[in-house]
């Protein structure tokens, strides 16, 4: 029991020492941290967050080109090696790590359920 009490007193003392050291941070450091926070919050702005959406017109054009290609009866030929290379290149150039996959899967799941997307896929296939 006494040992528990001592351990608890130790934990409180350690917490107090840490809090005091945090409270003693200087103004310059706090200012840098504030700037860092604002920089992080920039990620919430549409221009930063929605870069994928800015590619939507390009995607639409590409889909239209594919549809046109199929309707005139030609099959695009991409050599297997080249397909693999492109995949590797994407992986190598990807900034985000695998944690992002979870969220992206959610996104693609949602996208697949959208009527416009489904009709576009049906149109292509």
């Amino acid at each position: 029991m006494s040992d528990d009490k001592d351990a608890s007193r130790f934990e409180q003392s350690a917490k107090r020492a840490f809090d005091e050291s945090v409270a003693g941070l200087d103004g310059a450091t706090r200012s840098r941290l504030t700037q860092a926070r604002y920089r992080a919050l920039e990620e919430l702005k549409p221009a930063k967050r929605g870069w994928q959406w800015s590619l939507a017109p390009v995607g639409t054009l590409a889909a239209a080109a594919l549809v046109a290609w199929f309707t005139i009866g030609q099959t695009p030929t991409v050599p297997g090696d080249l397909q693999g290379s492109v995949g590797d290149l994407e992986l190598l150039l990807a900034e985000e790590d695998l944690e992002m996959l979870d969220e992206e899967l959610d996104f693609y799941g949602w996208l697949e359920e959208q009527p416009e997307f489904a009709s576009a896929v049906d149109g292509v296939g």
Partner: protein
Amino acid sequence: MTGLALSIARQEMGLDGEGALDSGAAIEAFLKDVEARAYRIAVMGVRDRDEAFDIVQDAMIRLVRRYAHRPSVEWPPLFYRILQNRIRDMQRRRTVRSRVLSFFGGMPSEDEFDPIVEAPAPSNENPLEHVAADDAMRALERALESLPTRQREAFTLRNFEGLDVAQTALAMNCTQGSVKTHYSRAVHRLREVLADHGEEYGNE
């Protein structure tokens, strides 16, 4: 995902006007609350203020970019998980750099820590911060350095940051049982190491 769920998700992600304000204000308040403590923890982890600052900034950016849409109750463990990963990355990178440099000769290995060489330059020294970092905290920092990484992380998150066992387990990516074990061992070891600082650390 249903239309309603999608609408809620869009609001939480700040895609709708009012939702954007709420979400932005909430995550800003969270970051404002944790940033100084996170910085102090990072300084203890990497012993370099500029690197610590970079780590905190990176952790904040990653949290906002990836998890701003998550319920705010999840932010503390997620943020500290990112922070601890970044600290560990920096430590590993430094170890590798140190090994490579010592292999090519001339540079001291990481075991040969020279406090004078490692001390921040005078321009980086701040009197207020220096005063605040009193003997008790410095002793605690030294004691923490002697702990295995997982024990140090458990102590830092539970004691300094005040996360509960479940949040700490999420932040450390381990079970709650492991957190309890690491934390208990950390407290035991720290009390032993700091036995000489009786008054400051409540030792009899």
